[in-house]
């Protein structure tokens, strides 16, 4: 025990006054302004902050690495007594993979699709001459077992596309462990995963870090996740450190205002509106819709109503058919059975057969604002086109209407009218997406995961904006999401979907109170909470082998 205590005390990574510059428009800009960091052996440090805070840049710098177009301009990075900033590339290469490992956000994009998992796993140990291929393969299976992957002896011989996202992320963690590094850098390892999958990856990561007493830098923007994982938390803002403390005291009493604002984000909640009157015709009503992509059935007998001025949240994991339901409503995927009614009128199944007015009534806001806005068009054109198209406004009238819309989404018209999307931030792009939907003057808007690609602070801004617009314009929203925190803050009614069927539906208040449908319960209890003991409690409750995908069966 005393041994372990000594090991814990010894300093593994020491960063002092780290400054990193990035290059844009032929000039160098500082993106990290002198950050200090101490990481002891066996310790897990959480780095949190919004995008652009420099968390990933610092994480990579801890390996002595910078992205293309970046350079370390000042400061020192000392890893176990070795200065990384001045080490030659060969020495760094010896270090990476062997003593410092990296787990990327998207395992699907980080694995080479042309090689089997185990071949990629053994690459590093063999390359660094730490183990032979045979030893490393045996070790991989052992790691897979410890990470509770199904069929540990066999799963390594599959290709990346043959295993699920959560399994892939765990396989990547196993790969990072292959040389038993002293330090692992986790760069948002669970951000792309569903809540139920996330939990199993979190449990696996924490277990393995504990078992091998590995130090880790855990980069994330999700506070609840970091609360489960980290011993200490460091909050970053625009390349500066805001504060650092151990997890419990940081959660209990954050000192800086910025940290408090991060903590407060999750508290935005709108009053639930009273349910619509019994006789009222819903704006959109989905009646027993079934749909399929070719022979694959994705929706089965789905029905729900959306009333004027209300928000219906459709929740479920990926693959549960939420987005497909939206595609049926917009007419992109004609249903095989059932129909979609708008104010009681049956809409033609395909959008091609709908009239201009019917098309106008249902608008969409997309998840990825980057692909939802034409990069070659100016903001004024993007918002102006639906106005001109549906209302036939031209010239000064059109400009006036677009200015009004820009005002509504809280962007200064004179400043933004002539910009192109690449000159906007993520949140601003999403606002333009909202304005484009509003420009059609619809009664009903489908919001497809509109906040999941955004930081929490920005996401909250978007939610508040959507809420205000709903008040002003009496809009009906269909809110597709897998984030239950979002549901809690904005929804009036909740529809829970699983495998193409509606499992449970009802007003929000009832949905968040027990008793639940089994699946709803699983979803709800899988949402990380800010309490650092939450994961332990949950594991105790469900049993170690019965979390995530396993719990679904």
């Amino acid at each position, binding site marked *: 025990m005393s041994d372990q205590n000594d090991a814990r005390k010894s300093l593994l990574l020491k960063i002092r006054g780290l400054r990193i510059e990035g290059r*844009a428009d032929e000039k160098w800009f500082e993106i990290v302004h002198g950050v200090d960091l101490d990481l002891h052996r066996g310790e897990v440090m959480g780095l949190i902050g919004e995008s652009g805070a420099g968390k990933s840049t610092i994480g990579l710098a801890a390996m002595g690495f910078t992205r293309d177009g970046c350079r370390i301009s000042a400061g020192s990075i000392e890893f176990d007594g070795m200065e990384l900033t001045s080490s030659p590339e060969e020495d760094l290469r010896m270090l990476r993979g062997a003593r410092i490992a990296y787990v990327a956000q998207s395992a699907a994009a980080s694995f080479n699709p042309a090689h089997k998992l185990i071949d990629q796993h053994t690459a590093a140990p063999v390359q660094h001459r730490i183990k032979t291929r045979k030893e490393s393969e045996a070790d991989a299976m052992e790691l897979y077992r410890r990470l509770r992957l199904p069929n540990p002896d066999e799963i390594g011989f599959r290709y990346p596309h043959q295993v699920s996202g959560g399994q892939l992320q765990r396989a990547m963690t196993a790969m990072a462990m292959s040389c038993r590094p002293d330090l692992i850098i986790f760069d948002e390892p669970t951000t792309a995963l569903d809540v139920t999958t996330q939990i199993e990856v979190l449990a696996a990561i924490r277990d393995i870090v504990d078992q091998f007493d590995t130090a880790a830098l855990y980069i994330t923007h999700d506070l609840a996740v970091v609360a489960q994982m980290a011993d200490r938390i460091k909050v970053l803002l625009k390349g500066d450190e805001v504060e650092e403390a151990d997890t419990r005291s940081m959660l209990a009493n954050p000192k800086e205002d910025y940290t408090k604002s991060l903590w407060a984000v999750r508290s935005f909640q709108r009053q639930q509106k009273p349910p619509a009157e019994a006789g009222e015709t819903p704006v959109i009503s989905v009646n027993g819709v079934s749909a399929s992509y070719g022979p694959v059935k994705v929706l089965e007998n789905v029905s729900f109503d959306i009333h004027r001025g209300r928000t219906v949240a459709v929740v479920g994991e990926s693959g549960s058919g939420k987005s497909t339901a939206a595609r049926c409503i917009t007419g992109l995927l004609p249903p095989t059975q059932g129909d979609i009614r708008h104010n009681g009128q049956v809409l033609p199944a395909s*959008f091609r057969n709908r009239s201009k007015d019917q098309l106008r009534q249902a608008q969409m806001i997309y998840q990825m604002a980057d692909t939802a806005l034409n990069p070659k068009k100016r903001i004024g054109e993007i918002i102006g086109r639906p106005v001109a198209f549906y209302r036939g406004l031209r010239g000064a009238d059109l400009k006036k209407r677009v200015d009004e819309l820009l005002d509504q989404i809280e962007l200064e018209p004179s400043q933004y009218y002539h910009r192109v999307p690449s000159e906007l931030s993520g949140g601003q792009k999403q606002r333009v997406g909202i304005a484009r939907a509003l420009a059609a003057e619809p009664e009903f808007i489908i919001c497809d995961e509109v906040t999941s690609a955004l930081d929490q602070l920005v996401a909250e801004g978007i939610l508040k904006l959507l809420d205000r617009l709903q008040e002003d314009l009496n809009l009906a929203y269909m809110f597709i999401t897998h984030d239950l925190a979002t549901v809690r803050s904005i929804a009036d009614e909740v529809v829970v979907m699983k495998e193409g069927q509606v499992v449970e539906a009802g007003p929000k208040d009832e949905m968040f109170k027990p008793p639940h449908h089994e699946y709803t319960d699983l979803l709800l209890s899988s949402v990380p909470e800010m309490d650092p003991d939450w994961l332990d409690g949950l594991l105790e409750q469900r049993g170690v082998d019965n979390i995530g995908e396993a719990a679904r069966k």
Partner: protein
Amino acid sequence: MSTFAIVFYTLMIAASCLAAYYHRREAFMVLFSLTLISFLMGLLGGEVWLRYIAVAIGLLYACGGLAYSFREFLVQTLPRDIAKVMRNAPLTASFGLFVIVVYIVAAIFAPVIAPFGEAEVVGSSYAPPDDTMILGGDQLGRDMFSRIIYGARNTVGIALLTTALAFLVGSLVGLMAATLGGWVDQVCGRVVDTLMAIPSLVFALLLLTIVGTNVVNLILVIALLYSPVVFRLARAVAGNIVVMDYIEAARLRGEKTWYLIISEILPNATAPLVAEFGLRFCFVFLAISALSFLGLGIQPPTADWGSMVRENATLISFGEITPLIPAAAIALLTVAVNFVVDWMLHLSSGLKE
């Protein structure tokens, strides 16, 4: 060792050292490799070869200087937003632009620049260069220089028209196939596959023999032959664009196919298409020259570089360089266009450095 060799080597080594000292990596690599080459050449061929190398280096630097000043000139004269792009252009690109501008000027003002007419017989056949005919005469005694100037007009003009036509047809059909999908895509794709399966030169010869050789037919036939390539590119590029959410949003808005193609897809597909335009232009240009060389392209007495090479080809056996001059004109333009295209590809790929 002669003074020339000593001065030459001293200068080369000094220049290399200076480049190394000021960390001009590229300049150093060029200078020092030239120095090494000239060591080798000096050993092998003595001073004469060394002088050739000196001339070559001089030419290289003259071209570099020309390109550098031409770029500065463009930066000063062009409107600001284009000038900004121009400032970061590599020297090769501005050299390419310069050559293209010279060719265009020659093509437009051909009657003013050329001292004699296109088909005018001035001296004896294969007359050597003198004061009246600076590049000498061809096989009928016509002025070589005048014919090269007129040739720019015919060869380049026709190539430009042909490429433009091929692009208009190819990219429109390609974008349409990608946007509409389904059977339209299938039919267009299979037709294009069939066209591409036939060797293009043989097919061109066949078609030209059937329809007869005149300028209009030539343009139409070559445009037809080259549009499948453009179709494939346009379809591939548009294929990546039509799956974007903004296209879906436009479709759901109820926009017509024409609007989708022109306003939503085309602006995002221009960069690769423009780059391809430059590249295709060279191929078309060479194809026309090749056809002219075979006698099926532009018909005499119209001046055309391809046929000029053929007409004077016999001179090569006598060690004359006259037939190589129109060939060099073709080569120079091809290289110049490729320089500019490389730069455009680089710009459209969005790489910063």
